[in-house]
């Protein structure tokens, strides 16, 4: 019980196999790992090693072929589609390489978006989104459309959106992939700062200079964790 409460993520023998035509690809091949609360873990590995698949499984966007995963003590296998949606809106926050913001909404509305599906009333949504943007130094951008923002700002907005639901873990899939080195460094500094504020972070990257900032680095290759 006490370990469960200190673990943000726990996976056991996770496997995820894709069938493409006659051949099958094992994107994950027996991944067992734990992420404790408050940790900043980087998952490193070359392209195609299964990093995104791992994050997607933890986020509940993908179901593993075998093995299990617990996030914040909750076994994802026990959740149906609606349950997984709730999991994504409350327990995890996801940041993508491609930002994935909605261009027709203002930044503040993008940040507040997950709270709509968690049933939070409008006034509270906006207040929480604004507070978060403020904390990330983005309050001057709150009313802008996303096409008026720079890449670094877009990714900050995406991080704000990932954090707005107060997730147990922040999942970032190559968040610096579309940023120049200065903006990339600033973003990593932000993740570092969030982690020092207590936020659990699981970062995926193929860049060693970025992984270096994490408290712990895990290496993934061909769907397996290397020791």
């Amino acid at each position, binding site marked *: 019980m006490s370990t469960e409460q200190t673990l943000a993520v726990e996976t056991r023998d996770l496997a995820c196999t894709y069938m493409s035509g006659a051949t099958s690809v094992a994107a994950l091949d027996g991944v067992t790992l734990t992420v404790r609360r408050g940790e900043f873990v980087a998952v490193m590995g070359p392209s195609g090693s299964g990093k995104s698949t791992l994050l*997607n499984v933890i*986020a509940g*966007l*993908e179901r593993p072929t075998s093995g299990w995963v617990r996030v914040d003590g909750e076994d994802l296998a026990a959740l149906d*589609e*609606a349950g997984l*949606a*709730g999991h*994504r*809106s*409350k327990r995890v926050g*996801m940041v*993508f390489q*491609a930002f*994935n*913001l*909605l261009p*027709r909404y203002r930044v503040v509305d993008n940040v507040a*978006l*997950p709270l*709509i*599906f*968690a*049933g939070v*009333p*409008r006034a509270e949504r906006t207040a929480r989104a604004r507070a978060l943007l403020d904390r990330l130094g983005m309050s001057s951008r709150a009313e802008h459309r996303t096409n008026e923002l720079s890449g670094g700002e877009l990714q900050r907005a995406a991080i704000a*959106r990932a954090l707005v*639901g107060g997730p147990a873990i922040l999942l970032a899939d190559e968040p610096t992939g579309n940023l120049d080195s200065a903006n990339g460094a600033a973003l990593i500094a932000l993740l570092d700062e969030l982690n020092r504020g207590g936020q659990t972070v699981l970062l995926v990257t193929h860049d060693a200079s970025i992984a270096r900032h994490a408290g712990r680095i895990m290496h993934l290759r061909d769907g397996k964790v290397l020791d």
Partner: protein
Amino acid sequence: MRLGDLAAMSLGNYARSRLRSALTTAGVAIGTALVVLLIALATGAENNVRRSIFSIGDLRLVTVQPFQPGANGLSAVPRTIDDGVVSQFRKIGHVAGVYRQFDAPLGQVVEGGDDAAIRPQGIEPNAPIDRGDLLAGRHLALGDRGVAVIPGNIARLVAPNVTAAIGKLVTLRIGGAVRLGSTRVGGSGTPRDYPVTIVGVFDEAASQTSVRIPLEDALVAGADNRGLTADSLRQQTGYSGIAIEADDSTNVAEIVRSVQELGYSSFSLKQVVEQIDQGFGVFRGILAGIGGVALLVAAIGIANTMVMSVLERTREIGILKAVGAAPGDVRALFLAEAAYVGIVGGVLGLLLGYLGGQVIERIIRELNPRTNPAPIFVVGPDLVLGALGLAILVALVAGFLPARRAMRMSALSALRYE
């Protein structure tokens, strides 16, 4: 997801692609307008016909004539209605009243001169026949003898005005030749005179020749004319007709059947109305079908637009799902968007159909000022709610498959979609 957020978010989606939403909505509006216009036309026509029927008489009434229906329905054989038959009529279920009528031979109100030709009808008090509106005096009452209720035109021949005719003693000459309009009718038997007191005058709009006298007086006059006693007249000639009143108009068909089983032909407005109703049901169905085809075309338009919009917003669907939208939320968003097309299109269509009807009606009256003043297009609350409901239903049905497609989309493949 809260209902308010669902409504606001899908309204945003609906309003975003303005031209496309406008065109799709216009399709629904035109379909709805056509349904409204055509059903309003059918309702107007039906109301008109019903109104004229109800003005003819009571729907609870079954009239029995002294005939037996012929084998081919056209020929009819005379058949006496005597007191025995009347008592059989009284025993039929759901009969509230049986009223006998005997028409005495044609005659004349002597004081009124040649123009005062009359058809004396012997009726029972409270008989449910069209007695016209009373202009003065009263109708026949129980126990009356030697009295008459006459039409206004005849009253004015025997007195300066209808009120002055009340209480006046006049002579009914029954039998023999009379002049009806410009023709002389030979008449039957030898004329005889009967003194009667005028107790009532009715509006001649109902009849210019009918004079209502007590049934017993008419029987005596009829018997005198043929040299019979009143009792043998009842048995041999029988009554001219019987009015049977049902306790409720829904039981009229049953009474008609019983009367026919007893071997008499009968007539009831109720049955005419039922046939007219059936006819209008078909008429309305055809018109609604024509409007329905227009709505169907609109539905295809909605489905097409929704499929396009689901495709176009694939990535957005992926994002919504990734940040926590449940499959039901995604479906609800698209269904609500379709519902907006139905609601806006339905309301516009209602307005369009209603105003269109008004314009057409005005044009018709302009072209032909003598058109029946009753409304041609009738839009009742049923039609308003029904048309609106239909538009929304059509939109939801059309949006169902695209919405399901959006719901079932995998978040990850949607996110990869360019």
